[in-house]
């Protein structure tokens, strides 16, 4: 059981949760995640450790409500409620060292997981340029937090409602053209990570992406999270979730993400029906 200490909608449909998890907080490192199960009948949901406080024994999660489980989490779980199971930290930590200048790209809800990585890279003495992108202004969050750990923060929106108009790959390309990038981290929707990787390869700059395939146990036991990297099968939960972006088989990754789309919709419908019953 893990108690929820605080919840807050930080932008449209994206929520911040602070939960009590002292063991995880004391061990957490940038790049790792946890798995939680809301209740007895719940599925296991992987979520990145977006922040943590070892002294307070808490971790911060940022959740985008996309389907049945995440919707249920933001709609039915509030301050003081208990989450039935929480396990972590899982996955390998980001390889934090002094690279020189690092560009951290966070897209959509990926802004949250990029934050602790940018912070750690900064603390390790890197120059950190952060690019945060979203479709619209109301889907941006944590810009102040990112600003505090970056030497430069670039914000983009698809529709130009805030910051630069356009996709995150555009400022990324400019930085690469200016030739001052030693390493890139990109976290966000698969398509964004794919295009960031293609851009990085053009300039021969190494890029790390964080893959978020479907997972169950998160301990290497089931293999549902397998991804193909440099022609080899890897389990994202134990060999990742971070991999070299230019070596990922993105088509396979996207196909596997969509594996349960029809059933996910069915689950959401069934959930909506129970919500209506309640009203």
């Amino acid at each position, binding site marked *: 059981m893990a108690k929820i200490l605080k919840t807050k909608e930080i932008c449209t449909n994206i929520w911040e949760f602070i939960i009590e998890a002292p063991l995880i907080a004391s061990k957490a490192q940038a790049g790792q995640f946890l798995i939680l199960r809301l209740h007895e009948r719940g599925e296991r949901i992987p979520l990145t450790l977006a922040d943590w406080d070892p002294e307070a024994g808490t971790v911060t999660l940022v959740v985008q409500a996309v389907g049945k489980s995440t919707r249920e989490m933001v709609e039915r779980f509030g301050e003081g409620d208990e989450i039935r*199971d929480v396990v972590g930290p*899982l996955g390998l930590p980001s390889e934090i060292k002094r690279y020189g200048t690092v560009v951290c790209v966070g897209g959509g809800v990926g802004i949250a997981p990029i934050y602790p990585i940018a912070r750690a890279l900064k603390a390790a003495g890197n120059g950190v340029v952060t690019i945060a992108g979203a479709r619209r202004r109301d889907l941006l969050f944590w810009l102040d937090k990112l600003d505090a750990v970056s030497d430069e923060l670039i914000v983009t929106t698809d529709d130009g409602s805030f910051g630069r108009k356009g996709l995150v790959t555009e400022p990324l390309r400019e930085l690469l053209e200016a030739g001052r990038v030693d390493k890139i981290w990109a976290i966000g929707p698969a398509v964004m990570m794919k295009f960031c990787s293609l851009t990085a390869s053009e300039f021969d700059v190494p890029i790390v992406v964080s893959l978020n395939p479907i997972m169950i146990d998160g301990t290497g036991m089931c293999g549902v999270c397998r991804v193909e990297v440099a022609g080899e099968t890897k389990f994202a939960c134990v060999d990742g979730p971070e991999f070299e972006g230019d070596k990922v088989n993105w088509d396979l990754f996207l196909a596997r993400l969509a594996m349960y789309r029809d059933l996910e919709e069915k*689950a959401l419908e069934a959930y909506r029906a129970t919500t209506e019953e309640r009203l």
Partner: protein
Amino acid sequence: MTIVPRKTPMREQPPAERIRNFHEVPLGYTPEEAVQEAKRCLQCKRAPCIQGCPVNIKIPQFIRRIAEGDFRGAIRKIKEDNYLPAICGRVCPQEIQCEAVCTLGKKFEPVAIGRLERFAADWEYEAGVEIPPPGKPTGFRVAVVGSGPAGLTCAAELRRYGHEVTIFEALHEPGGVLVYGIPEFRLPKCIVTQEVENVRRLGVEIRLNVVVGRTVTVDELFADGFHAVFVGSGAGLPRFLEIPGESLVGVYSANEFLTRVNLMRAYLFPEYDTPIKVGRRVAVVGGGNVAMDAARTALRLGAEEVMVLYRRTEAEMPARAEEVHHAKEEGVEFHFLVNPVRFLGEDGVLRGVECVRMELGEPDASGRRRPIPIEGSNFTMEVDTAIIAIGNSPHPLIPRTTPGLEVSRQGTIVADDLGVTSREGVFAGGDIVTGAATVILAMGAGKRAAYAIDRYLREKYGRKGAG
């Protein structure tokens, strides 16, 4: 005395009915049937069955008590050597253990030892389970990693020696393979829950959702004041065929398939949140218990045709005879001497499998004849689901995060018969030491390790204990 040549039959759910539910298939003996079967035992002096049992249950003695109607006496006798009889009675491969050497079995069918073991255990559940008192407190604290049969048995036994025990389990439910692997229709989860409850009642603390090696390391367990650590983390890493197309949508590892259904209750989706998909034509690759479980589960989820593809012949299949028999009754098709070479897909989704025919050559290291592909015999089968059930390997997490722990080339922890490893204070047993094996072997290893841990603690810290 007249000898009854055949085992007293056990009632079962009829195949046509049971493939539409997840309830247990064999229904167990009534007291009358059990007594009748127990009377078949010749009570032979030599009792080869005891040697045939990996934990040397005093078989003729418990059977005699059943024959006399003393069911409490029977279960007490079994529990002197076996903590998990309700489970072992259901899942042990008796036909290659106790029943293989039964004297009666030389001419007739052997005594149904497994069924009688199950009967006695089930009877106890109805009548009330006796929990033996824990030993006098020693003040020693032992950490047990993993709550499979090895960990549960080791923990229970350590309590009998009087040590304090905490089990650390990575998943949200205790039981190991017993909960995530073996399906409900073969081992009802309420039985596992009950066994775990018994271990808790002995005073064992079970901490779920702790991944040793991540949440806490073995070194940190010692730093936290544990005097010894038992590693019973099993062989949970699914092996793949390493052929093209293995990551297509529709290709499962048996672990994924069975975990979704058993641990996550996907067969009750959407009442439970975790989904599962099974197509019309399912190929299961492998010939062990895991393959049988996956095939029979697929049928129950509504597959029209389920085919087991095995690269040797029926004689070499490692599955329990009863499982093969049940699978056949239920309509699972067996294709022997075939091996997949490639999965075929369209837009990332499985559409078929290309196989090659095999023939048996010279015996290999396992003593079984090695399957050799017949060149040019390739053919394809249309399938929309494939389940890979070719075995599991030990998980590298604990060895990797525990300095000084010697590991074999196969990734198993190196330990002697008592579970003593290369690292002082660290003991190991079960599948993590042997590679994927059986429940009873894991249990026996847990029990012997408890003995070794007790001896180690007393030798190291003296007789007075930790206090």
